[in-house]
């Protein structure tokens, strides 16, 4: 156990002091939010959570999928094999990636919410402190299935292929997953797909807090199903990785 924690600590330090990672995962979503907000301030709200929830969900997707390329690279360069010659429990390497991905998702979502609070979100309603904290916390928990998808990608594809698969997953979740366009404005078939994607679950959770309604049961079901499904597939992929 102490070994797993030591590995988690090293993995966290390693990623948190990487400037490119910080800019991409934390800076980029906030910058996108501020730019969009300044660019078309007067468009009517597209959903009750508005732009802030959509971009916070984008931040969740960016950080959540990050385990994919990271695991893929370390499988390709042999570091995971090197770890397997030590007493470290093999699953600790995957667990560390997921936990560190979550450690980025929380501030990434919080920064977008904070930016909305500072500039005064002109879509959706302004939130108080308690609601903001609730929004950030629940959207962060809803990021869990996306980290499972990231781990699944990293364990299924090695090296460059993991980067490609992560980009593909990002584009699908962003464009078809209810972040770029709400399902209500999509063609029916695409909307049906969007409602089953975990990114839309994250959006729905955010909207329910921002709009003051109770949590959407369908969103919770979708998020739980993706967590279990991607988690189980990742576990299967993991077994294939460790036994050659």
């Amino acid at each position, binding site marked *: 156990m*102490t*070994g797993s924690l*030591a*590995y988690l600590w*090293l*993995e966290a*330090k*390693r*990623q948190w*002091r*990487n400037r490119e990672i910080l800019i991409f995962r934390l800076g980029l979503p906030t910058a996108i939010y501020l730019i969009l907000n300044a660019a078309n301030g007067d468009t009517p709200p597209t959903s009750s959570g508005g732009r802030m929830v959509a971009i916070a969900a984008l931040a969740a997707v960016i950080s959540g999928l990050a385990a994919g390329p990271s695991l893929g690279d*370390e499988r*390709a*360069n*042999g*570091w995971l*094999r*090197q770890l*397997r*010659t*030590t*007493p*470290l429990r093999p699953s600790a390497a995957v667990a560390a990636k997921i936990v560190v991905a979550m450690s980025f998702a929380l501030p990434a979502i919080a920064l977008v919410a904070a930016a909305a609070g500072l500039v005064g979100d002109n879509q959706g309603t302004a939130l108080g402190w308690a609601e903001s904290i609730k929004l950030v916390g629940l959207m962060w928990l809803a990021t869990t299935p996306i980290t499972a998808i990231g781990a699944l990608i990293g364990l299924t594809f090695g090296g460059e292929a993991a980067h490609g698969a992560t980009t593909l997953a990002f584009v699908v979740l962003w464009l078809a997953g209810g972040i770029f366009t709400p399902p209500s404005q999509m063609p029916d078939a695409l909307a049906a797909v969007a409602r089953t994607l975990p990114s839309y679950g994250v959006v729905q959770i955010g909207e329910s807090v921002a709009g003051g309604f109770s949590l959407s049961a369908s969103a919770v079901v979708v998020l739980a199903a993706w967590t279990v499904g991607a988690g189980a597939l990742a576990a299967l992929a993991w077994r294939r990785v460790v*036994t*050659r």
Partner: protein
Amino acid sequence: MTNDIDSSAAQTSPASIATFDGVTRRYGRVTAVDGLSLQIGSGETVALLGPNGAGKTTAVDLLLGLAHPDAGVVRLFGGRPADAVAAGRVGAMLQDAGLPQGARVAELIGLVRSLYPDPLSIVDTLRLADLEAVAGRRVERLSGGQRQRVRLALALAGNPELLILDEPTAALDVDARRGFWHRVRAYVSEGRTVLFATHRLEEADAVADRVVVIAGGRLLADGTPDQVKAQAAGRSTISVAAGGLSQELLERLPAVETVDQARGRLTLSTSDPDATIRALLQQAPHVQGLEVSQVGMEEAFRHLTHQGGTP
């Protein structure tokens, strides 16, 4: 074709800590390790010598539990390899294993230390691997030689009973190689066991007290460096025109090891050319086109491993 020089030494080693028993491992249609039986005793420094593609890395993977045999049994410290690894009894330096970007040298060593029950101190590890000057440096800012030493440090940091090194000096120049083995010797002088894979005969000769030669996944020779060298270097080839001579006749001559027929000539290898030629001239006085050549050490080693490589 197995030339077992001194199998008794291997079998009677005091405490066998690693055992291959009839181990076969295939990857698709390639048989990487083919019926390998081998024991490594406590305190030995063993070179696993063979050309590229001989099955050395697969043997190392099998020993570490990174690969599983299709047939036969691999035991490490009397149990499953994975259990010995989990218990922290083994440290390994794999071929070309990468390091995680952004980590500092001392952090990686600290991580490995935290995983083993009785690690070396960080000071000793840095000193053994000659890394004191770069302890705080991130791994992506290291030179190739420094990275190699970091990988050695990660294998040593846990203070394992058995150290496994797969082609550890492949990326190093001559001076760096000498320094590397100097450091490994300093570590093993305290009674630890080392198994290293190499394709360099001179490296096996200089470092190991036992050399195991494999090619095509099979054991070809097993003995002290002097014994293996004698087997490789003391070999001569005799070539004669094939006319009227049978391969069987040549195979029965004293000291003959192999006989090959090609392009109208019979070529045999012998460990005692004088005795072979005397007997040959007695039994076939009219033999024509006799040529005798002394095979150099490298060439003989190549010959030895090539034979095993072609089933």
